[in-house]
């Protein structure tokens, strides 16, 4: 006699299968990753408006005879909360200002703001915005020097709007212009351009500050530490890269 067919073994399903869970997880991860990627994307490219002195496409604040002029072209990548940027500015800043005003060099300040993320505040973006407000008031260099001269003792303590106002006032902004500056500091109209400057720096491959580029050549570590210690080394370093 043939054996009767074995009863069908029925698997008791207690919940979703591994494959289903796996599929859902992969879908969620892909969706979230796409959202994060899209949220940090600048859809229009680097098209934010800067000030009268800024280069297009987040190219920084350019002061001097211009990027086309036949003079030494200097690019400084910096973050207002970066202590070594402060050391560099406090050392060679005055000499650079003189050279800019004499029309001997053109300096482009590429102001980055990545330190906000690691320090957990928003002072880099706010200071960069305020520096552009200062450029609107024609006092960029004085304001820029004041921010670095007054960096907090403790990295990460940041800056206040009151400090920005005081430094603008000390740079000679007064009356109606000072009120305009105050509104500019508060309303943060330049954050789009500030973000573009950060992106542009990364597109240039710069990930650390301060980075100094003279006529297209990045100044090396040894020369950088000389510049930080001795403002007198500036002429020599500039000549080396001309």
């Amino acid at each position, binding site marked *: 006699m043939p054996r009767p067919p074995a009863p069908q073994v029925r698997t008791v399903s207690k919940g979703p299968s591994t494959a289903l869970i796996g599929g859902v997880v992969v879908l969620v991860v892909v969706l979230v990753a*796409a959202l994060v*990627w899209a949220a*940090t994307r600048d859809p229009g490219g680097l098209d934010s408006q800067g000030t009268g002195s800024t280069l297009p496409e987040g190219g920084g604040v350019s002061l001097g005879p211009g990027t086309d002029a036949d003079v030494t072209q200097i690019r400084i990548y910096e973050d207002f909360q970066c202590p070594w940027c402060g050391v560099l500015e406090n050392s060679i800043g005055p000499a650079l200002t003189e050279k800019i005003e004499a029309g001997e060099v053109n300096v482009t300040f590429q102001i980055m703001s990545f330190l906000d993320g690691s320090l957990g505040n928003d002072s880099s973006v706010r200071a960069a915005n305020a520096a552009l407000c200062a450029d609107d008031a024609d006092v960029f260099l004085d304001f820029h020097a004041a921010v670095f001269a007054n960096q907090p003792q403790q990295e990460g303590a940041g800056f206040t709007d009151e400090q920005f106002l005081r430094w603008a006032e000390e740079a000679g902004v007064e009356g109606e212009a000072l009120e305009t500056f105050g509104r500019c500091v508060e309303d943060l109209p330049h954050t789009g351009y500030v973000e573009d400057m950060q992106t542009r720096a990364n597109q240039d491959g710069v990930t650390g500050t301060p980075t100094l580029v003279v006529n297209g050549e990045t100044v090396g570590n040894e020369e950088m530490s000389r510049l930080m210690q001795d403002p007198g080394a500036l002429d020599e370093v500039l000549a080396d890269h001309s």
Partner: protein
Amino acid sequence: MTSAPTHAHHDAPAAPAPAPTPPGRGWPDAVGLVARLLLGGVLLAAGLFKITDLTGSVQSVVAYQLFPYEVARLIGTTLPVVEIAAGVLLLAGLLTRSAAVVGGVLMVAFVAGIVSAWSRGLTIDCGCFGTGGPVDPEDTRYLSEILRDLGLLALAGWLVVRPRSPFSLDGHLPKGR
């Protein structure tokens, strides 16, 4: 083992079929649990640090000088999501083997990236837990970063071979695929 030893002459009625080793017994289970928690915890922490500082995450990838900017941005923004997902799955013990494969592949990629940066003479922080980028030559920690990632790779390898461990959701899923 907590079950009392059974004596041969003890005439128990129809001894129950020996149950499969219950979870939580034996050193392999302990290793599996530790591997899950360590690898999962590190991946989750690394992902959380990066996703709360996406600018720094992207910049850390740029610092390796391996990819064009848009590719670096794609990696810097999506990597933290993958790390968090793999980390959470490992901590929960859900899809342990697949999550461990992902973790292992990430570790291989990280080691390759760090070795590449080291061999090209770059002086960067790995950016493993957020903002990396250039550091002073005497401040690089390539060897310890590589050893840490190789250790995590070993844990991932264990879980790929033997994903079973106590306190895992996998243990509650219907058997069979």
